[in-house]
């Protein structure tokens, strides 16, 4: 079922990519940072009519060392765990001020952004509150699968087996001992109108989703895969390649949940073995065959469950995105 706000939305293609750059170049991200890449793509799609509330994290520190700023759009950082609440306040303020005739009536996209720690861990409560209250805003989780800004500590979004500075492999440990928290599912459980996953390797897909998220009235949640070469012990030039592999191995499937209907953005007919994805990254170097098999089984099971959700959804439409073909 298509939401009315996006019924007439014309997809971005490589021929009509937006030229706006709400986030300027010259920020201080590491080489090969695909988190700032994912963020840039999302913001390009959303455009300049936006107000951004950022959590503490890599994206906050690399874009705002006073007196410099990489932000060409209004941006506010308050604390770590409250980006969704700050965005709620901005949205409520504009709603009241417009109604009372104190500011011109114009819909502006309110974006809250945070990393996986700021979303899945410390910011989960504020996120849930904002989604439940139904504010008209877009929440972007930039998932680089650990607390990178503080030096690669594990979060609840760190994948099973990954080495971080607080999930070190050792005699008694195979690295991260828990499975990645499924935050898009948690977001979808709030019955919000739009949830989607996106990857910088599939840039038109990511941008289309960001645009749709901003067009739909009400809360929208975007979960963007954000490779961190520094924290993943990955060659900086392979960040986009690893993003593509994550999708091709079904480790990070691309889908949308529109008004509760799961829609696969692309179905992977012949998924690559997870080992191809794992072996490129130093954070998985210590994994033995048995653990890799365990990860493969889990990925297969989760992907199957996702396909079933999509099959159950009526009127399933496949994305028209062509970029990958």
């Amino acid at each position, binding site marked *: 079922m298509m939401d009315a706000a996006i019924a007439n939305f014309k997809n971005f293609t490589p021929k009509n990519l937006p030229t706006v750059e709400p986030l300027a170049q010259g920020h201080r991200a590491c080489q090969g940072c695909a988190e700032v890449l994912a963020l840039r793509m999302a913001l390009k799609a959303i455009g*300049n*009519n*936006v*107000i951004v*509330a950022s959590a503490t994290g890599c994206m*906050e*520190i690399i874009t*705002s*060392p*006073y*007196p410099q*700023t990489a*932000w*060409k*759009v*209004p*941006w*506010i*950082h*308050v*604390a770590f*765990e*409250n980006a969704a*609440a*700050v*965005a*709620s*306040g*901005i949205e*409520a*303020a*504009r*709603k*009241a*001020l417009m*109604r*009372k005739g*104190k*500011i011109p009536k114009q819909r*502006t996209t309110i974006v809250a952004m945070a990393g996986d720690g700021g979303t899945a861990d410390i910011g989960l*409560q*504020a996120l*849930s*509150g*904002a989604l*439940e*209250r139904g504010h008209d805003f877009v929440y972007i989780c930039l998932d680089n699968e650990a607390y990178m800004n503080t030096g690669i500590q594990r979060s609840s979004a760190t994948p099973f087996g990954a080495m971080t500075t607080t999930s070190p492999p050792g005699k008694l440990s195979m690295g991260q001992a828990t499975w990645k928290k499924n935050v898009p599912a948690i977001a979808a459980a709030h019955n919000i109108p739009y949830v989607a996953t996106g990857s910088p390797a599939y840039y038109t897909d990511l941008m289309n989703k960001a645009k749709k998220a901003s067009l739909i009235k009400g809360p929208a949640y975007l979960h963007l895969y954000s490779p961190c070469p520094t924290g993943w012990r990955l060659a900086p030039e392979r960040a986009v390649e690893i993003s593509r592999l994550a999708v091709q191995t079904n480790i990070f499937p691309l889908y949308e949940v529109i008004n509760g209907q799961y829609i696969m953005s692309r179905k992977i007919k012949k998924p690559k073995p997870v080992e191809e994805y794992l072996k490129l990254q130093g954070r998985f170097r210590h994994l033995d065959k048995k653990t890799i098999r365990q990860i493969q089984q889990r990925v297969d099971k989760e992907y199957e469950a996702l396909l079933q959700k999509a099959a159950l959804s009526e009127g399933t439409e496949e994305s028209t995105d062509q970029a990958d073909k």
Partner: protein
Amino acid sequence: MPERVGIEVSLAASEAACSADADVIAAYPITPQTHIVEHLSELVADGKLDAEFVPVESEHSAMSVCIGSSAAGARTFTATSAQGLALMHELLFIAPALRTPIVMTVANRALSGPINIWNDHSDIMAERDVAWIQTFAENGQEVFDLIIHAFRVAEDPEVLLPMMVNLDGFTLSHVIEPIEMLSAAEVRKYLKPFKPQMVLDPKKPITMGPVGMPEVYTEARQQIESVLLNSKRVVVEAWKEFEKLYGRRYRPVETFRTRGAEVILLTMGSVSETAMTAVDALREKGIRVGLMRFRLWRPFPLAEFKRAVKGAKVLAVLDRAISYGSQGGPVFTEVRSALFGEADPPQVFGFVAGLGGRDITVEMFNEMVTKATRYAKKKKGPLYEMIGLRER
């Protein structure tokens, strides 16, 4: 002038935010602040106040919503108490740094543990250093007036700092008092529409809350301190203007029968009314005692305080909170430090009483006066003393 009506003080606090035409209210319920937010949500539900009421999932989010709302240019109000205020702690420092003129009422209550929902000042005294302007109300009329005053001061372009209005939980928040409530039209004469200096607006993008490296952090913090100290002038001016319009006079430090007083009691909040009764009775007996209270607590009204105690021999300070491991209650240590190096200062003795809802009686004030006088004669007393502490 409007008529006085009998109303619960909490409801009067909500009516003040309503007359001030707040645009956004974000609050989380906590005893004894609940009646304030309940009534605000009623006022919004009945269309009497055109505001967004954001029913947040925690006080941390309440303050976060308030900061976002104020940064987006809305007149913003909230209320909390005790654990709720403590949960906001992190953000209380950030609101002044972002120069967001939020107004918050704090229904003062004891902090856990043990958990206790009743009145004292341990919640607010733990937030002395957060760069909010802080006033304390003695009665219901003052609660109403101080909230209106707070919006005017906080939103003054020379100030742009958040402001807390403190009222004692239950002992003030839940009593019914005759209060003259100013209508929105009357308040408009005093309170101009909020004109934010910096606002999140796509037409004029700004970056708020950037990283402050060691090269700029000290200066950024110093600026907040300097704005807070300079705000006292605006606080006082705004009270003078209030008196001109509405006839009620407020000052940073209030005194009662201090002329010729040898002993001065120092209090804050609604217990001052009990203290006045005690002072009257002691004066009847020929004991030269007076009372002073802080209405303005931050910025600390140093000059007014010194003027108020001038000539007194003894200052007996009541604290409604313990400053664990320190040298006495927070008010005591602060005023004693304020007097250090003064020529012929009064001897200062500290008393802690009325924690977690324990009553403070006229007899307790008598005891403080008697003890302070005795210690002063001997020029020696305990650093501070708890009044009404049971032996077993």
